[in-house]
């Protein structure tokens, strides 16, 4: 783009030609006016002064007081007064004017206006009430003031999970547990499955008999066995077939299955709803650098920071972020200029390192598999208290150790792969997410391997000798994982973070300097809680009270993390942006949900349910409840449901969804193209404008020169047309062009 010497010498200069100031577009852009179809506006009077650049003309102080009065009578399109950027006094005047206008309207419009106002006020009052009931408002406000919005998003994410788990617990409780508990009191009669004599339905009692040592109670509490196994906590206790109330018969197996599907579906919808805004923005905007600088500069400062220390840290982290981003841009340019030989070398290194990463992951998964098998095999032999506990928790221990080592390894490896810094962070994070969430699935797969492999060809479809009630066993494993996860989080905070703070603050040794103060690493913390939530989703089917335990766990974790944050941590040097955080959290949570659905779906549809316990004793697989229930429905409903679930319907639904998706994608692409065209057009219009003004200026200056030679220079205050003119020194101002001027184009 050519540089117009008339206007500025470099890009940062101000084009301070008076003509530009007088253009209607510039004037109207100064302060926002309402959309054209709505009521009156008032322009604030401001005093402007334009500082000149070397080419500019010196303009005096001018007071711009243009009043645009567009009184249009379309009250329905008026915006609420408080959405106008004006002072309180002006807003009051606007409101009085509007009331005046309304008085002239018919009774019907008046009534409509007043109802709209009162509805709005009611809505606001109810929203205010709801906001007061929000959990942890005060705590989150304090955190926001001290650390800014990046870390705040972690805590509001935690609050969201507490609510989600509580709702899941309510679902399970109301539809599965409550009928059983209420049955004797509401004159209901619960029928249990008939005990047949086959070998598969023998379920030896697991409550300990005889003298029970205290340690065994602790073991039972921590591992879900013994006295806990045959309680409401685990699947095996719900051996009810149906509950006959006076009016209806409550089909418990059906309810159990439907509640499972319902809570997974509800979680999906809630997460998607919460993430729609962030998702849209990240999809519509081009990736990487687009607007990242504007976002960091214009939206970079958290206005909610109250703490002086935090403000100082925020400044330094902003400076660090800007410097790294600028450097990243330089690196990208360097990358673009790589030679082919360098590229080959880099790709070879990356391939090698990725193979190494896969090997490490495979080794970890194999370790988990072996640990699970060993732990299951050793279940029957009890040695002593401590060793028993370790064997019980062996899979959890292995998973935790693997999850501790692999991120360190990944962050070490990625430095050799020579990606841009932002991509490095994202890629390492993806690897860690994959590691954490897949380890649960590996655990489950190895567990199922154990359950469905029997010595003598499974007569019941599963190993009924070792696992008379295999669902309860899976539930116990999930329970153990959850307890261990909670203990680890608490232990790390107490035994690692607090000593670290003490060492760093009070000791001057080299260790303190190298270790440094604890940073609140958001990605790792988020992975921790998403891991816990994935366990909850998988485990609720086998352990219906797990969401309640999870709610309490996250509730306590909130306070642990808050205390740790306030006392031990300083904000991260590389700041985590609030918007991208929200999207990242919910994306990882969605991945966790998807990974949780797979084992649950497989076990519902494929694996033979145990015949000694649980609500599905009379069915081959859990899913069979649905077809059998559909068969008992009246003919109309049955044929309707069968028609919906037939292949024809499914295929046509799929095809229609695909078509809709393609249409929407095509629309988005077309919009993007139009946006690009409009941008180019806008830039072109800007150039046209400048070009024309330049020519106009030249014409006028030549005209002024001519007229100066012929007559004294006119210094009229106003010309006849009513366009305001401005005093200036060199006479370059827009008046009505003299009739003999030849505007040379």
């Amino acid at each position, binding site marked *: 783009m050519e540089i117009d010497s008339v206007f500025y010498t470099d*890009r*940062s*200069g*101000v*084009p301070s030609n008076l003509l530009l100031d007088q253009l209607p577009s*510039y004037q109207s*852009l100064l*302060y*926002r006016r309402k959309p054209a179809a709505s009521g009156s506006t008032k322009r604030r009077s*401001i005093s*402007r*002064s*334009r*500082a000149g650049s070397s080419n500019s003309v010196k303009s005096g102080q001018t007071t711009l007081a243009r009043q645009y009065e567009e009184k249009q009578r379309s009250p329905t399109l008026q915006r609420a*007064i*408080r*959405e106008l*950027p004006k*002072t*309180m*006094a002006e*807003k*009051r005047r606007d409101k009085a004017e509007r009331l005046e206008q309304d008085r002239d309207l018919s009774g019907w419009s008046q009534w409509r206006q007043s109802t709209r*106002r009162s509805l709005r006020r009611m809505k*606001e009052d109810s929203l*205010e009430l709801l906001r007061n009931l929000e959990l942890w408002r005060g705590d989150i*406000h304090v955190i926001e003031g001290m650390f800014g*919005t990046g870390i705040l998003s972690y805590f509001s994410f935690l609050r969201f999970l507490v609510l989600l788990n509580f709702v899941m617990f309510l679902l399970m409780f109301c539809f599965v547990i409550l009928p059983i508990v209420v049955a004797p009191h509401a004159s209901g009669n619960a029928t249990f499955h008939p005990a047949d004599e086959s070998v598969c339905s023998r379920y030896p009692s697991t409550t300990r008999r005889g003298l029970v040592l205290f340690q065994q109670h602790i073991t039972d509490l921590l591992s879900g066995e013994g006295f806990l196994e045959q309680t409401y906590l685990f699947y095996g206790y719900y051996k009810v077939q149906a509950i006959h109330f006076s009016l209806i018969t409550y089909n418990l197996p059906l309810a159990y299955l439907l509640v499972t599907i319902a809570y997974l579906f509800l979680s999906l919808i809630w997460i998607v709803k919460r993430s729609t805004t*962030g998702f849209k*923005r990240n999809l*519509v*905007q081009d990736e990487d650098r687009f*607007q990242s*600088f*504007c976002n960091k*500069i*214009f*939206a*970079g*400062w958290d*206005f*909610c920071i*109250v703490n*002086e220390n*935090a*403000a100082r840290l925020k*400044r*330094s982290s*902003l*400076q660090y972020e*800007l*410097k790294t981003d*600028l450097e990243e*841009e330089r690196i990208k340019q360097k990358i673009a200029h790589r030679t082919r030989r360098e590229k080959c070398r880099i790709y070879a290194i990356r391939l090698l390192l990725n193979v190494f990463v896969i090997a490490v992951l495979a080794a970890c998964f194999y370790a988990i598999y072996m640990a699970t098998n060993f732990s299951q095999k050793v279940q029957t032999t009890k040695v002593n208290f401590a060793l028993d506990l370790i064997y019980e928790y062996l899979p959890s221990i292995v998973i935790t150790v693997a999850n501790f080592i692999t991120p360190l390894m990944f962050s070490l490896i990625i430095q050799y792969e020579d990606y841009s810094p932002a991509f490095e962070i994202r890629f390492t994070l993806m690897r860690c997410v994959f590691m954490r969430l897949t380890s649960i699935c590996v655990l489950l797969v190895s567990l199922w391997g154990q359950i469905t492999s029997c010595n003598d060809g499974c007569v019941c479809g599963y190993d009924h000798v070792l696992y008379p009630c295999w669902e309860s066993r899976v539930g116990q494993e999930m329970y153990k994982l959850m307890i261990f996860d909670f203990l680890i989080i608490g232990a790390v905070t107490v035994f690692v973070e607090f000593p670290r703070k003490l060492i760093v603050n009070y000791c001057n040794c080299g260790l303190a300097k190298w270790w440094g103060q604890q940073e609140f690493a958001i990605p790792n913390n988020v992975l921790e809680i998403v891991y816990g939530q994935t366990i909850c989703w998988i485990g609720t089917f086998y352990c219906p009270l797990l969401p309640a335990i999870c709610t309490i766990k996250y509730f306590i974790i909130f306070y642990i993390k808050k205390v740790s944050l306030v006392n031990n941590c300083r904000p991260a040097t590389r700041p985590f942006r*609030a*918007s991208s955080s929200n999207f990242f959290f919910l994306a990882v949570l969605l991945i966790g949900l998807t990974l949780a659905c797979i084992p649950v779906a497989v076990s519902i549809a494929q694996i033979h349910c145990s015949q000694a316990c649980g609500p599905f004793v009379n069915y081959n697989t859990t899913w069979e409840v649905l077809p059998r229930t559909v068969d008992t429905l009246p003919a109309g409903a049955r044929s309707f449901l069968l028609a919906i679930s037939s292949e024809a319907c499914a295929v046509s639904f799929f095809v229609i969804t695909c078509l809709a998706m393609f249409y929407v994608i095509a629309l988005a692409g077309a919009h993007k193209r139009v946006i690009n065209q409009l941008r180019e057009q806008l*830039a072109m*219009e*800007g150039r046209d404008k*400048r070009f024309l003004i330049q020519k106009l200026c030249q014409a006028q200056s030549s005209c002024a020169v001519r007229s100066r030679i012929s007559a004294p220079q006119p210094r009229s205050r106003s010309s006849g047309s009513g366009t305001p003119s401005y005093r200036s020194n060199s006479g370059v101002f827009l008046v009505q062009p003299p009739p003999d001027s030849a505007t040379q184009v």
Partner: protein
Amino acid sequence: MGTTASQLGKDLLSEYQELTFLTKQEILLAHKRFSELLAKEERSLPSPRVPMEKILSLPELKSNPFKKRICHVFSTSDPKDGSLTFEDFLDLLSAFSDSATLEIKSHYAFRIFDFDDDGTLDGRDLEKLVNCLTGETEDTRLTSEEMRQLIGNILEESDIDKDGTVNLSEFQHVISRSPDFVSSFKIVL
């Protein structure tokens, strides 16, 4: 204010509710905090004005690098000294509240960032803005090379008509696609 020192009248309260984005509780809290800034004898005046130094002593504004600009933008006093009446204060809180629209916030953000009050953000405004963000001392500023690169990037991203400055429309356009703005442009008492 026209009422007793320690309370707002009910109609005044509902009027403020209608004209701002604040809830009743927030308005009352703002009134309480504002009265604490006034000297005792000033509290009975009809619409007292608090000088800028006292406003800047509020903890919410004290650590803000834009505190002086905020006071200037919201002040309705004639000599433009940054002093605020209670209604100016409410306007301030309303623009910074949770429920304010994006348009209001971006409008006022533009005026706050416009250090020379000329209606556009030119290179000098942007440079001052970046220096406010990173810190005023020598070792926290960016080098001039980095500053030039940064301002070039900002203008490339936001200056649509390529005139070297960011005007209000361009600013609002950029802000509307900036995901962090709404959550960061917030002050709650």
